[in-house]
């Protein structure tokens, strides 16, 4: 790890002022940043520790019914907030399917949104990586790439975004509140991350020095609470990143889908909202054939970027499964293995 200057401001304004210096980075819990620094993947000259800024630690319901989650709310605290989990069950399930209990106790909402890809070539400073060292090439293209992107990738970069949390946030129209030195702005979660194109080093729309202060879920997202799931396929059933994941929400009346929300994780450099599939689902009956058509629509543009052609049929199956699980209804209790497609009965022992 390189040496760095360390400051701990007490307010958002002080933090933004302190982060104006070149080479500065915000530090929240550090579960991703310190890991990257230990590997010399990232070498900030100054850490602006924002963990003492109390105004960023609140979960509040606004007058219009939106829920506003401060950027420093810990992942576990949000997932176990009873009212939040009741209203946004797929978000809670996604949070609890990520990382380990220790990491969820530390990791923050804002940090989760900005976590970096887990592409092994990005982490290995001896490898070529256009994201870490622009213009150096991409060793993943001819390397171990079975987990890499099947949507939205480019010749320059085939890395995926590792977040579980962002997938239902994208599905349910979450909004990110951002503060900079001169202004405050809002960006749809779906528009926060960028596809790689020819500039994979530019991963999102945040400008240097800007700080995520909160994430908002619109009141309308509560309408999906009775039919909302997050499902995640991983190489082991806990404490692993998604190979493919899906967040699904439905509003069902008399067996007919009034509204649908669908987003995928593990398939692209950003959480992948499937608008075409949602449009196909609206007005249809909640049946397997309909879900299959929607899955086909969601994956129409998918193509392998390496040894990962299997991810496309896997994603198709998982979308169908997630929509069917959502149609069946949100489980009354969080499943013992959150987001696991191997729990036959929600909340029951999968191996019993």
């Amino acid at each position, binding site marked *: *790890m390189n040496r760095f200057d360390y400051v*701990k401001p007490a307010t958002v304004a002080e933090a933004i002022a302190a982060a104006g210096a070149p080479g500065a980075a915000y530090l929240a819990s550090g579960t991703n940043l310190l890991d990257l620094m230990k590997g010399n993947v990232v070498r900030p000259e100054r850490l602006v520790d924002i963990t003492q800024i109390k105004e960023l630690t609140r979960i509040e319901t606004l007058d219009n019914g939106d829920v506003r989650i401060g950027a420093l709310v810990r992942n576990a605290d949000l997932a176990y907030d009873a009212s939040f989990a009741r209203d946004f069950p797929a978000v809670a399930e996604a949070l609890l399917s990520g990382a380990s209990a220790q990491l969820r106790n530390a990791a923050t909402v804002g940090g989760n949104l900005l976590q970096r890809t887990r592409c092994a070539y990005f982490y290995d400073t001896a490898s070529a990586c256009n994201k870490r060292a622009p213009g150096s090439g991409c060793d993943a293209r001819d390397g171990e790439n079975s987990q890499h992107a099947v949507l939205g990738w480019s010749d320059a970069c085939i890395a995926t975004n590792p977040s579980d949390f962002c997938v239902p946030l994208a599905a349910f129209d979450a909004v990110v509140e951002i503060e900079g030195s001169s202004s405050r702005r809002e960006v749809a979660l779906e528009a926060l991350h960028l596809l790689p194109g020819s500039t994979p080093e530019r991963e999102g729309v945040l400008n240097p020095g800007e700080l995520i202060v909160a994430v908002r879920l619109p009141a309308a997202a509560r309408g999906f609470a009775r039919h909302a799931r997050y499902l995640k396929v991983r190489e082991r059933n806990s404490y692993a990143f998604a190979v493919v994941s899906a967040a699904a929400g439905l509003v069902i009346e008399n067996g007919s889908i009034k509204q649908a929300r669908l987003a995928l994780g593990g398939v692209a450099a950003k959480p992948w909202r499937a608008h075409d599939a949602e449009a196909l689902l609206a007005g249809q009956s909640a049946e397997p054939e309909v879900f299959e058509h929607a899955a086909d629509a969601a994956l129409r543009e998918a193509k392998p970027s390496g040894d990962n052609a299997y991810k496309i049929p896997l994603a198709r199956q998982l979308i169908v499964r997630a929509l069917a699980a959502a149609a069946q209804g949100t489980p009354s209790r969080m499943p013992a293995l959150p987001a696991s497609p191997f729990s036959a009965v929600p909340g029951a022992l999968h191996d019993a």
Partner: protein
Amino acid sequence: MNWTVRLTVNGEPHTLALDDPRVTLLDLLRERLHLSGTKKGCDRGQCGACTVLVDGRRINSCLTLALSLDGAAITTIEGLAQGDQLHPVQEAFIAHDALQCGFCTPGQIMSAVGLLNEGQAGDDPERVREGMSGNLCRCSAYVGIVEAVLDAQATLAGEKERAA
């Protein structure tokens, strides 16, 4: 430049001067306070050997800057027993032979204490396994670990009932 961090570790207040902000909580515990019960396994948040409680919550001490925790109360494996009286989780690990080489054990025990504090797993072995997935055991003593956690859960629930 120098920084100061105040921590209460196993009930004892400390004020420490650091000349380098890179010191993690793990390194501070082991190298500066000589509490070597907390283990450094991967040092990257993947194995759980460094698990301690910060204000009662389990975290990976290897991925936390000590300076970030100014004012916090830390509990390590050295702080669990009351004199010669072991913590129920420690007793249960011995009773169920929940270890072989023992390297991961302090982290396993601290994680189990954190899990029981959280109160989300109850007596469901699947929820215990899920809740303990952040602690790896290369000797694969997992069966005994889950039994020990369930046993300690029952003991603590019984104690709570008797106290009520």
